């Protein structure tokens, strides 16, 4: 065989490279963690990479996974070789089509990065819940356990399906395999050609629907024949396992890599065997080999083909000596007799024994266990625990491993330190910040090691849940022996900390091995750094005898023009210290990687990185470690002592990265969590924070309004409230006519601020003596941190909130005195979405119910450990929930229906109990309007009275009314989501809810792209913008969802942009809430995916409006009653060229850099779109009011 060539790629790329080359039609839809496969396929086709038949596959993005499955079904029925990629909820949406495609015996492969299913909470992480939910559809399920297998079995699946005519789901573990970078042997086109039988391809084509030989498929069948028809497919399923094995054998003959339907590894005379599939099989296999070498009679049976389940082959693959079997499932089926694989194994062995076909002397003990849900670690220690369980006289059945279950005591104890990694494997951990480029550099490093040396290598990258200031931990392994180890590094030879301040809060060296190396990016040099280290860090360095190196990478980066990116510098240090390559070779390899990665971005970028490499080693110093500690600083607690009990016990542990150790009993059983928890995190991300200058502030509230993180706030209060204020706490007379004697303070929370500077940018005031200064100015955080934190504490906890009934909500100035009930989210610094949500929470938060579509807003809104949604001092605040991505409008409508029904019932009960509770109270409660804050307050007083009286009434009606009394205050229903939801996947539902006429408010946070999954095109993406799945620029204009909604006539519609017109924004929210019918607000939301410094987000919003890209309007059906036209334009005709707006953003500029001619063409068309739309709007706004009134407005 020719010398093996290797590549370093991840599982997604491994599978996609096969799928793309073996397909003609590919329909895609983004969903984590499979999105990368679709993105690559789209990119390859855009780059004109052909399939093995020399033709470029057509790739189309659909509006949902359901749409993708339908499209693929159609493509298959018409004879194409077609594929798609998905995961989790996406696969669930495909299930109806899966039945059809299988029922019609259609050859295809869907590649799935297997992921958990949302239950008590959503999870993007890997397990088999999704594929298990598809196991009954009639599809073959083929499981890969590693990156190499993700490629190899992808090909085997494509080869087998053509012959078997059974469609295949080829799956591998989300993230653990889909995102693990591993050294693998690639398959070339000849390999693919060798496995794919051209005759079978043509046979597939021949079965296509064609008017030349018409047949009909998809009949409706009666009781007389449906049943028999279902049985017609049996021969295909019976033959399928053999066909797969044959493909595996042909593959082995060509590549030398032999797979079996059930791969057995371990002692030939094993007594204890684990049955498992997926990446966990790698862990079990390496543990089995180690235990077997130590004399234990253990083995593992790795399941490749799970459906069709070849029972006899499974039994035959087990050693006859088997006495005890543990079947491990990476899924949970609550209420079942056992998880799916377990049940199948039990059935297979039972049938074999009953049929005298089993090789075993006695019926083996068979137990089932769950492991690894949602990427929970699965390690050799856990494997050993499972084998230990099997050695018991009565092994625990239906166990769990990897967690502590102190509730129903299912869990097995395990030794987390047990390791089977081969000697010689070097394990390295890198702590970095999202924006500092650590992960990118480590991907390059592991690629260099994997592709430029004989060593084997593996990289896996862990992120936290925040979109701003997120921490990353890179796990790199390399060594002379092949690496399995699909789990995190628990003992590291090398640890690099790329951000000095991580040491304050994280036990960065916890996993360092004795005698290992510690590299620190430090503002202090080797001579002075020691005294700046926290005590636990000093202790660990001494007791573990670490070799300690420092470099001021931040300074080198600054001096070489790299800005905040220290990646290249730290990478150079890593190579210097690890010695994996000789010095000169390492430098050459790094530079080569730089040229490859950055070359296309321009020569000066390459040169800048080269300079950083060249200047690194002179700045790298080894510190001679003293033998004593000098610091008294302990690690900063994850939350302050004042945090509530749950936050201390549970949330804090998650924040500290110890969530894995939380036992079952402390977690809520139904997924309900307390709100108001981000306030305890104090992430201290900002380098600069705003400082208030009361002498020139006009108290307009604009800075408060735009702050994405609600960290800059204002209050007006009685001067007496200042008792106990910290020294230097600033205040000034309030500039409100209504509050002549009150004081005003604008205060920043220094430890929650992310330093985005939007407040500074929006401030309309300039110092008359120095035009650079405004009423808020950005100043370094560190020197102000302590003082401002004390000021904030006083402001936040001691100054009273303003009496809501004294404010005019529709004014920007007044609205910003309202307490935000959405604060300190993990959204990106400068986020354009969150100011709208915060405004919603200020205006209506204490009576709001929010249905939130999956996406950015559900992640920064609801991703554990904390939530920004909070409550006021009375304990009231938004009630928030996320159902799914696709159903959010319907979900929120459900809220409305409940509220309407139960309010009606409460009123009925009031009537029934009128005498018991007093006619006056009952009547005033029924009549009580809650249109404004004063009447809401009065109604709440009455409700308190009602509750008191009801406790004295002993009847079912009284108890019912007590349970419903709070509904007598009008609830504010909000349906919130992004454009991916509203324009694409949820559009059908949204449309139906608009058409329902029910009183719901829909807020679309329109970033014009799928932001959460990494910038894929939606139907909100404008013409000419580059997005994933629109690499060549979006060809068609953005859907005008706002205008479409006006067509109903009875829907309140507003298109808003806070940065362009904040007054219109506030009005739109007030009008939408007041309108007794469906309301739709489409809010321009600048986004990190637009590609510019978001501190200029508000300027861009202005330009979006001035250029006519985003005309502001409101459509208020109530205006008909006044004889006016409901359509009101809130902006002037376009006054700047569209290009002035577009080319400030990289999403548009990119096209001018990748395809200038096309960029020019699309710009011209987009400019024409603008003119045409404006004309249409003008006509609408100027036309006379329609004669008819809005039919069915409201209920």
């Amino acid at each position, binding site marked *: 065989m020719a010398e093996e060539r290797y590549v370093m790629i991840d599982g997604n790329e491994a599978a996609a490279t096969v799928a793309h080359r073996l397909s003609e039609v590919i329909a895609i839809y983004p969903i984590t963690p499979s999105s990368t496969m679709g993105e690559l396929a789209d990119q390859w086709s855009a*780059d004109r990479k052909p399939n093995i038949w020399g033709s470029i596959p057509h790739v189309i993005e659909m509006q949902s996974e359901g749409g993708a499955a339908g499209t693929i079904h159609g493509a298959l029925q018409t004879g194409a070789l077609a594929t798609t990629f998905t995961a989790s909820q996406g696969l669930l949406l495909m299930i109806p089509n899966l039945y059809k495609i299988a029922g019609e015996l259609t050859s295809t492969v869907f590649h799935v990065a297997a992921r958990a299913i949302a239950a008590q909470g959503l999870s993007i992480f890997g397990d088999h819940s999704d594929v298990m939910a598809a196991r009954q559809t009639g599809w073959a399920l083929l499981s890969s356990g590693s990156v190499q297998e993700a490629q190899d079995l992808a090909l085997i699946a494509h080869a087998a399906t053509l012959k078997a005519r059974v469609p295949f789901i080829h799956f591998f573990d989300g993230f653990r395999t889909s995102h693990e970078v591993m050294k693998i042997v690639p398959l070339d086109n000849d390999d693919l050609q060798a496995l794919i039988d051209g005759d079978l391809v043509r046979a597939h084509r021949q079965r296509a629907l064609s008017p030349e030989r018409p047949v009909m498929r998809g009949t409706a069948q009666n009781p007389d024949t449906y049943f028999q028809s279902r049985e017609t497919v049996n021969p295909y399923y019976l033959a399928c396992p053999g066909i797969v094995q044959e493909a595996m054998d042909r593959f082995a003959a060509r590549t030398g890599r032999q797979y079996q339907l059930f791969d057995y590894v371990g002692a030939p005379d094993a007594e204890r065997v684990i049955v498992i599939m997926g990446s966990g099989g790698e862990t079990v296999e390496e543990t089995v080999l180690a235990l077997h070498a130590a004399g234990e009679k253990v083995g593992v049976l790795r399941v490749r083909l799970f459906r069709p389940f070849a029972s006899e082959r499974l039994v035959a693959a087990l050693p006859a000596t088997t006495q005890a079997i543990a079947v491990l499932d990476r899924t949970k089926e609550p209420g079942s007799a056992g998880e799916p694989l377990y049940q199948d194994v039990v059935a297979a062995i039972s049938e074999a024994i009953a049929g005298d076909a089993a090789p075993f002397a006695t019926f083996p003990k068979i137990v089932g266990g769950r492991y690894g849900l949602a990427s929970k670690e699965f390690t050799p220690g856990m494997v050993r625990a499972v084998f230990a369980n099997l050695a018991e006289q009565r092994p625990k059945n239906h166990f769990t491993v990897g967690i502590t279950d102190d509730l129903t005591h299912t869990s097995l104890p395990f030794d987390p330190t047990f390791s089977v990694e081969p000697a010689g494997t070097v394990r390295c951990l890198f702590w970095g910040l999202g924006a500092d480029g650590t*992960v*990118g550099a480590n991907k390059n490093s592991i690629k260099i090691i994997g592709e430029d040396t004989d060593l084997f290598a593996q990289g896996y990258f862990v992120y936290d849940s925040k979109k701003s200031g997120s921490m990353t931990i890179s796990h790199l392994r390399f060594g002379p022996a092949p690496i399995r180890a699909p789990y995190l590094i628990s003992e590291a030879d090398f640890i690099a900390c790329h951000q000095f301040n991580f040491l304050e809060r994280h036990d960065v060296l916890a996993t360092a091995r004795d005698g290992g190396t510690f590299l620190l990016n430090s503002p202090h040099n080797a001579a002075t750094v020691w005294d700046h280290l926290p005590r636990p860090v000093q202790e660990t360095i001494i007791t573990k005898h670490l070799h300690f190196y420092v470099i001021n990478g931040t300074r080198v980066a600054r001096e070489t023009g790299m800005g905040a990116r220290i990646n290249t510098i730290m990478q150079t240090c890593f190579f210097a210290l690890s010695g994996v390559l000789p010095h000169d070779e390492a430098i050459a390899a790094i530079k080569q990687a730089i040229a490859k990665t950055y070359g296309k*971005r321009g*020569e*000066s970028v390459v040169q800048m990185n080269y300079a950083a490499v060249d200047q690194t080693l002179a700045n790298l110093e080894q510190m001679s470690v003293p033998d004593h500690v000098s610091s008294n600083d302990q690690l900063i607690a994850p939350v302050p002592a004042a945090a509530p009990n749950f936050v201390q016990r549970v949330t804090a542990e998650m924040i500290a990265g110890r969530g894995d150790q939380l036992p079952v009993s402390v977690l809520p059983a139904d997924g309900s969590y307390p709100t108001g928890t981000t306030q305890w995190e104090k992430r201290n991300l900002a380098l600069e924070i705003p400082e208030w200058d009361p002498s020139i502030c006009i108290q307009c509230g604009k800075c408060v309004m735009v702050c994405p993180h609600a960290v800059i706030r204002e209050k007006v209060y009685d001067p007496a409230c200042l008792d106990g204020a910290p020294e230097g706490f600033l205040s000034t007379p309030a500039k409100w006519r209504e509050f002549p004697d009150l004081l005003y303070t604008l205060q920043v929370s220094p430890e929650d601020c992310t330093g985005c500077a939007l407040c500074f940018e929006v401030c309309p005031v300039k110092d008359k003596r120095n035009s650079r200064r405004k009423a808020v100015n950005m100043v370094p955080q560190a020197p102000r941190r302590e003082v401002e934190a004390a000021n904030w504490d006083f402001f936040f906890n001691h100054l009273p909130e303003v009496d809501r009934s004294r404010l005019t909500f529709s004014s920007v100035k007044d609205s910003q005195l309202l307490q935000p009930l959405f604060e300190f989210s993990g959204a990106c610094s400068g986020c354009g979405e969150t100011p709208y949500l915060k405004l919603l929470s200020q205006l209506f938060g204490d009576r709001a119910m929010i249905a939130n579509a999956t996406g950015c807003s559900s992640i920064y809104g609801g991703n554990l450990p904390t939530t920004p949604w909070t409550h006021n001092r009375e304990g009231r605040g938004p009630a928030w929930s996320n159902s799914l991505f696709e159903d959010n409008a319907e979900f929120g409508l459900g809220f409305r229906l409940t509220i309407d029904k139960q309010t009606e019932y409460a009123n009925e009960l009031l009537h029934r109990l009128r005498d018991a509770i007093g006619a006056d109270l009952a009547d005033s409660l029924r009549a009580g309007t809650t249109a404004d804050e004063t009447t809401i307050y009065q109604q709440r007083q009455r409700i308190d009275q009602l509750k008191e009286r009801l406790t004295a009434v002993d009847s079912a009606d009284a108890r019912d009314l007590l349970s419903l009394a709070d509904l007598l205050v009008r609830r504010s229903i909000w349906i919130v989501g992004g454009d991916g939801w509203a324009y694409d996947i949820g559009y059908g539902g949204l449309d139906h809810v608009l058409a329902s006429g029910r009183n719901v408010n829909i807020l679309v946070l329109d970033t014009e792209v799928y932001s959460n*999954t990494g910038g894929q095109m939606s139907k909100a993406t404008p013409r000419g913008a580059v997005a994933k799945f629109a690499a060549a620029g979006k060809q068609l204009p953005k859907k005008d969802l706002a205008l479409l909604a006006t067509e109903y006539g009875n829907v309140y519609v507003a298109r808003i942009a806070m940065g362009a017109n904040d007054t219109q924004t506030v009005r739109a929210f007030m009008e939408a809430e007041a309108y007794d019918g469906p309301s739709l607000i489409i809010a321009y939301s600048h986004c990190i995916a637009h590609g*510019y410094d978001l501190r200029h987000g508000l300027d861009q919003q202005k330009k979006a409006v001035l250029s006519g890209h985003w005309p502001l309007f409101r459509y208020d059906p109530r205006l008909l009653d006044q004889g006016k036209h409901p359509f009101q334009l809130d902006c002037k005709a376009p006054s700047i060229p569209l290009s002035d707006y577009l080319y400030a953003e990289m999403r548009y500029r990119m096209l001018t*850099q990748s395809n200038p001619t096309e960029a020019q063409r699309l710009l011209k068309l987009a400019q024409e779109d603008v003119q045409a739309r404006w004309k249409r709007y003008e006509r609408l706004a100027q036309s006379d009011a329609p004669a008819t009134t809005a039919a069915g407005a409201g209920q």
Partner: protein
Amino acid sequence: MTQPDLSTTYLGLHLDSPLVPSASPLSRNVDTIKQLAEHGAAAVVLNSLFEEQITMESHLLDHYLATTAESSWEAQTYYPEPDEYVLHPEQYLEHVRRAKEAVDIPIIASLNGVSAGGWIRYAKLIAEAGADALELNIYYVPTNPFVSSAEIEQNTIDLARQVKESVTIPVAVKLSPFYTNVAGIAHQLAMAEVDGLVLFNRFNQPDFDLEALDVVIRPLISHDGDGEALRLPLRWIAILHEMVPIDIAATGGVHTAQDALKLLMAGANVTMMASALLLRGPAYLRTVRADLLAWLEEHEYESVSQLRGSMSRHKVAEPAAFERAHYVRTVGTFTMPIPAP
């Protein structure tokens, strides 16, 4: 009578007329270049390739690709990355090539460098792309008080020499008027074998927005009848003509045939236009050309070359008019406008 001959030579190029659109947004687009040619442009100076812009674009692209990447489980990147970008200078070079293909008239590329290496490298690439000539756009606002004027001038001259030595196409230098001795630097550039001077570069001067207290940058557009703009090049061209053996392009404030005539009489080989064409569109070239012909016919000139330099400093009755004394006279003849009632 035969029609007067409008042809002229500039940088060794034979041109049909002295009417040349100068570097402006108009020449960014090949379609507009075609229109300019159709309407009678004798040559076109392309918009400038700015080395600073090349670097900035690369770094912006790199910055936004890099700093948004690898920070989140779900969004490991936010943009598709094409196999390659057509960044500057490739984009500019492609523009040169396409402009050359589109029209028959000479294409003069324009370059604004930062580093000595950059000037030379990009000049060579532009020449290879097929430009007929190259204009070096010396667009630089020195703000460092510790660098002497002599140093800056010497840098300019060295650079022009190096570029000239590294390419075979003709090279012109576009200067600002802010030299203590314009004649001195013009002479030294001529000695460096530069083929032409373009007089003058009009920097975009910052302005203030009094309401917003912001500095605003607006393109400096001259207007018809804006004599001020014209008079600066007029003076210097008249002085330099025949004093320095070098071709001269006049630029700044040319709106009408009369404007062009004056500059030609001062000694310009070509008169370049930007503002007038931006304001009135490429077709306006026809008007200027027709007016030029009409004026020459009316005044019985045979050709442009006949009048070129006819009112240079050496050929006017009052050469001192171009020198300092002139200032006094101008002020002396200035009439105070009568305030409106």
